[in-house]
């Protein structure tokens, strides 16, 4: 399970840094993007096993990003984990409707994050 390549998409550098810390400690390779558009850019050039994305982002938000990922054909079976907050159940549902595979609530527990990743990746 180590060596997974994970794309993290969030406009908050704090969250990106924390994800990076947790994921790289778990032995994963981490890619970062600050919005959906950058996320798609990374997907075009890097082989990625899982995507973790925020919903509220400038330029291209998480919902649009997930839709674009799913619409691409190439990434139909790429697991996408949505980062949500406890209070935004509707956002989570929207993200799921757009094609999100699973979700994790911010602020996330590192162990829980890893277990969620394991749940969606072979």
């Amino acid at each position, binding site marked *: 399970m180590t060596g997974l390549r994970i794309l993290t998409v969030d406009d908050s550098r*704090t969250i990106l840094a924390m994800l990076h810390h947790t994921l790289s400690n778990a032995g994963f390779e981490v890619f970062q993007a600050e919005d959906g558009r950058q996320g798609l850019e990374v997907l075009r050039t890097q082989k990625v096993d899982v995507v973790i994305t925020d919903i*509220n982002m*400038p330029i291209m938000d998480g919902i649009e990003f997930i839709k674009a990922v799913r619409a691409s054909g190439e990434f139909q079976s790429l697991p996408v984990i949505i980062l949500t907050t406890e209070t935004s159940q509707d956002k989570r549902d929207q993200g799921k409707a757009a094609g999100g*595979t699973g979700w994790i609530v911010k602020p996330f527990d590192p162990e829980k994050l890893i277990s969620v990743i394991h749940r969606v990746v*072979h």
Partner: protein
Amino acid sequence: MSDLDEFKVTYFDECSELLGELEEIFAVIELGDRDSARINAAFRAVHSIKGGAGAFGFSALVEFAHGYETLMDQVRDGRVSMSDDVVTLCIRANDLLADFVGAARSDAPLAAEHGLAEKLQMAALAEGQAIDGELDDFDFDFTPIAVDLGKDEAETKIEVHTDQFADAPSTDLDGQWEISFRPHAALYARANDPLLLFRELAALGHMSVQAQMLDLPPLADFEPFGVYCLWTISLVSPDLTEAMIREVFEFVEGDCDISVVRLGEQTGTGENDVTVQVAISATDVLDPNINDFLMLSDDEIGAMIEFGEPDDLREAPLVGQETVGASIPQEAIAAGPEAGIPEPTSAKPIVELADEGDRRAVGVQSIRVDLEKVDRVVNMVGELVITQSMLTQQMDETLRTQYTELVRGLEVLAQTTRGLQDSVMAIRAQPVKSVFSRMPRLVRELGLKTGKTIKLEMVGEATEIDKTVIEQLSDPLTHMIRNSADHGIESGAVRLAAGKPEAGTIRLGAEQAGGNILITIEDDGAGINRERVLQVARSRGVVAPDADPTDEQIDQLIFAPGFSTAEAVSDISGRGVGMDVVLSNIRKIGGSVNVRSRPGRGTRMTLRLPLTLAVLDVMLVQVGQSRYVVPLSSIVETIQCSRAAFSRVPSGGQVLHVRGEYVQVIDLAERFELDGARDAESRFLVLCEAEGSHKIALIVDDIMGQQQVVIKSLEENFERVEGIAGGTILGDGNVALIVDVQGLKASDPHRTAA
């Protein structure tokens, strides 16, 4: 702990940026732009601040940000309109948010009532009430509550059940669960995979799975993400609860039909019944024609799809009409092959991706680098430039003809070095926006304090300039804007009487002009009161009583040390330590300030700043036995002395007559007390433009060419020398001093007011 501290640093950095962004957004919103993109951006900023705060447990900050976020969310959705009152509240909330961030940073909690009134107002607004003073009866509670009654109830029931029957004799079926699971196509569309669910279930206890095939189409019609199978899973584990099973299916809830039944309890009725059947989709009723039961291992299915000849299989159903049962032990699942039923086809893109993985391109658009590291590179590139030009200078004609390849190589090296230098400099450049964005707030505050209506217009915020310059820019800009608001712009009544619009305008602009950046601060106020300025200047001895300075010179006097014309010293412009500080700050970073004023029409101050502080394009000149460099950006033209028209002035100095203009002349040899060439006719004049488009002409013995030099500070290594801006190391390793044109002019002993 150190990791956490590091995150905190990142977080607070980010907060500063987000708070700045908020301020900017609301400066525009305040002007009437209620564009939804802006409101969205504001929401996101607050949301991000809250998100990070939650991660660090800054509860007071979370609470305040949450209230603010909730309000912005309502505004964004159009449930609360962005009225002027709301805008004012938000601007206040931005300040409070900054307070809470500051409190979290310094670990100094704010008073409990800090921002409470605003919190209540925001909550009231979000609840659909108008802003009013009577908020006492409002029930205030911002703690988010997660509500999931169904699950909690189920869990509670199980507990009650366990308590009641803990000691009851257990049947064979104790701890046995049966799960029927039928995925919808949506489950695959979201990249979920039954195999992963089974793997997770297998970790809960001993599992056996029975697959049940639905109508299977011929292989040619087989949809990779189609649903052709449902499963019945039996799971045995003594301490299993339904909640644990449900959790496995958390992500696919709604994307499948699922029932979880505890065996031996199926017939149970009454309140303690824990059998729960949920999430059966009404749209997806089980196919009544299910008659094919199948249990295949993943290997078998994978093999069939991969190796079977499509032609042979086209007419026949993919699998036989028999029932196969198999028990999947835990380890087999965990170590099982990666192919689920839809996998063989869906795996293909992944393989393609792997091939493409070799392409080396990074999608991330920016990285953050410690400034110190960049500076180190800048420095080394500087040294490289020097070495490179040293090498070029070592090449004499003999070597040139002898080693053509070497010469070509050196030429390429020169080009590359130049390119490298430009690129490295560009790294240090930042848009002036980071400074400009602080100004709307300043103007707003100044407007409130002075009781004047002041508009701020900004242009050219994207203009890029060296980061060090930017850092030095904030104080001078603040001072100059204060000055404009306090002394420049008149009160509304005076303006109206003068036939001007009641609201005064301050215009802040940035543009690149050659190797310089021009920052202009322009107001449409009363202009500089020259009479008064001169009067004060005379009384303070800044100007000789008999001197008769021109209007432009009088304007420039406001930068003289210790000068203040404010009739009543206000707390805005300070106590007369304003504009001279501006000038010295700007000079320190190699810039100059020019002021132009038109009585009754306004004042424009122009800051001319170097694009970068580290490297200078210069002209190399010879004076006596020494070489000096003159910044190219200040040179207008060079003239041979033999062709120039000099005149003597009574004070003993010389002036040059050039194109109808008299220009002050400074002989560098004389000024720096060097033995200059005696033959005046062979010497050169370097005509330079100083502050305020005043020209001065420098007499030098010879002009030796142009080059780029890396500036070394004299002050840091020696001490400040009048007329010298710094030093540099030339290509041959010798040191040359950089002439400070502005400083020379100011310190010229022959300077006259004329």
